[in-house]
């Protein structure tokens, strides 16, 4: 059918581009002509992932947990139910699990077998999350992975890596930064990065956004 070109995960998008454009267009055309998919529905799904579903959703969940102790308790007990009940986001799937960072415990999320990721609250995963380096090293060298992100934890802090091997999905509840007393949920949410909800980063410092 077509030739297989070598392709590098990080840099080689151009080499795959024209071949893949043609190949995906061909299969879309066939599946549309046979009546399996309406291309307009594909447009709409792509638009949703590009503009509406992303880590800003998770940031609102985290900010509410920081600001509202009752919500935080409910979130830790059953994240799917809590997020639905509080109406923080429009929709969330079942089996969402929030894991809380403390001064003695840092959580990190990975899917060593594929790319499982909490799409509902973080959007589509970044390339590095799906990459061989992250999937191979997160479970046996998480401090080395954190160093790749410029993050150093206290040596005594326990590190807990959650391998997403089923349809449960994890989101890290990072520690609320100091110096944010009295902040609104909206302002707190500006400190919450995607990576801090995966566990490869920490929230921004208050002085970084002022």
């Amino acid at each position, binding site marked *: 059918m077509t030739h297989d070109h070598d392709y590098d995960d990080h840099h080689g998008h151009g080499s795959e581009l024209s071949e893949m454009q043609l190949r995906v267009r061909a*299969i879309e055309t066939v599946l549309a002509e046979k009546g399996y998919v309406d291309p307009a529905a594909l447009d709409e*799904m792509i638009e949703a992932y590009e503009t509406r579903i992303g880590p800003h959703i998770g940031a609102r969940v985290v900010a509410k947990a920081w600001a509202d102790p009752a919500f935080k308790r409910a979130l830790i007990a059953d994240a799917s139910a809590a997020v639905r009940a509080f109406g923080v986001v429009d929709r969330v799937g*079942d089996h969402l699990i929030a894991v809380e960072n403390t001064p003695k415990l840092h959580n990190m999320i990975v899917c060593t077998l594929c790319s499982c990721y909490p799409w509902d609250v973080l959007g*589509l995963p970044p390339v590095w999350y799906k990459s061989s*380096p992250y999937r191979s090293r997160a479970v046996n060298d998480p401090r080395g992975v954190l160093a790749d992100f410029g993050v150093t934890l206290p040596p005594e802090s326990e590190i807990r890596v959650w391998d997403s091997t089923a349809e449960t999905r994890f989101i890290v509840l990072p520690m609320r930064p100091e110096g944010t007393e009295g902040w609104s949920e909206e302002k707190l949410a500006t400190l919450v990065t995607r990576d801090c909800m995966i566990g490869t980063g920490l929230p921004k410092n208050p002085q970084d956004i002022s």
Partner: protein
Amino acid sequence: MDGIHDMGGMHGFGKVEPEANEPVFHAAWEGRCLALNRAMGAIGAWTIDAGRAGIEELPPQLYLARSYYGKWALRLENMVIARGLAGADEIAAGHAQRGGEPPRRTFGVADVSPSLTRGSYGRAAPAPAHFQVGEGVRTKNIHPATHTRLPRYARGRIGVIEAVRGCHVFPDTSAIGAGEDPQWLYTVVFDGRELWGDNTDPTLKVSIEAFEPYLEPT
């Protein structure tokens, strides 16, 4: 299957390279490819587990050489051909060459919104859970040639049941068309040294989500 996808603990892949201000898609075809795969799943052409198996069954050389959505494109082609939904000749030609089986349904605009919420894989329990929170368990040393969600690095290891997550569709059977066969799902946590040896960071703990058939009492 003991495939290249099962990467936990492997050496040699190098540093993690985050991309600043990464776009959701790096090219338009990636979005089309994602949407096509999701759409075919949504109309029931295959289960999520069969779809994962479709990626794992790519030759390892291709698995490593292809980008993420490049693998999704190959999986899509392979699965529509294997299920008789389209022919390789039609994909090569870029147009349908014959009518064939009428689709059970079309993925249309009204299907998009529901498809954005992740499906539920919880099922009624056919039997009580075998293990309880706090109990020690050993993962089985199994090497099925078909799809499984027990990673190699966590086989034959002793861990502790940390949580019972309910009864879920069993990927090992769902992936091969052998039904949902719901099984209890547990979070099993391992000391890093149990997985990687005595020289491991003593602060490390790793958990997997383990289906009951993967576990035996210690």
